[in-house]
């Protein structure tokens, strides 16, 4: 079933790479929304329903961790899985992201196989 994804990263190149990785991971994309920071993403989510969010941590204006914390205040975003994709791969960052509500964590640099490995259980509702 085609999914609607939101990709949040301050690098437009990285947003395109993530979108391509989703396709390479075998996902059928009905719609891809893009945002350059957490605040832009929250604005998008007030108007649009998505099935999956992929989010960087280090971003200007509003970082990924603050974005996840504020997601609970948006009706359309409730229950939508969030996967972090970031260079910050330390154990404490992983724990912090998961405790904020992220369902998965992908470290840059990554391969499409690693994206697939994280996404499939999340989309199947097993994570």
């Amino acid at each position, binding site marked *: 079933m085609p999914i609607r994804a939101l990709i949040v990263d*301050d*690098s*437009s*190149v*990285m947003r*395109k*790479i993530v979108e*391509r990785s989703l396709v390479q991971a075998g996902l059928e994309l009905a719609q891809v929304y893009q945002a350059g920071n957490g605040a832009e993403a929250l604005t998008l989510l007030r108007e649009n329903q998505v099935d999956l969010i992929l989010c960087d941590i*280090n*971003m*200007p204006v509003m970082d990924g961790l603050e974005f996840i914390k504020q997601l609970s205040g948006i009706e359309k975003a409730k229950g939508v899985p969030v996967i972090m994709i*970031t*260079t*910050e*791969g*330390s*154990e*404490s*960052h992983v724990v912090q992201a998961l405790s904020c509500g992220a369902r998965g964590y992908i*470290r*840059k*640099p*990554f*391969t499409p196989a690693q994206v697939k490995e994280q996404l499939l259980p999340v989309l199947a509702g097993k994570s």
Partner: protein
Amino acid sequence: MTSAHESESASGSHEGWSPLFELAVREVFKLMLDSELAAPAGDAHPSPAITSMVGMAGQLNGVLSVQCDEKAAAMMASKMLGVEVSKGSTDTSDAVGEVCNMIAGNFKNKIPGLGDGCLLSPPTVVTGKDYSLCSRGDGPALEVKFLFEGTAIVISLQVHS
């Protein structure tokens, strides 16, 4: 990916960091650009039309930089995006900045203690040829030179004590 060299720690000597630094660079180019970096012949050095920098602060303080020419920058963007990107496109500086960011993150995650103990700044990208890069770093500097798709690139880490 891991390496036997990854037993080096943030608090220890920097002497063992060089192979980890080189590995961190190679991994980023292999995984994100599908490119095997080659050793340059002679003292190849790019005309640094584009320099990207990421600051590191915490247990390691310093600046990691990637220097390349416009051709290499456009090639990085093209390889990352899977489409032809022309010189001067905004995607070229974005791509070099993101490469620098990933190298910094990948390197610090290879040094025990640095993953949690060192924060990264967002990348800054400078374009143009008529400038010099001065760092207040007074510690050791790591520098690796490679040929990326036949074009010289330089990646360096200036450590502040």
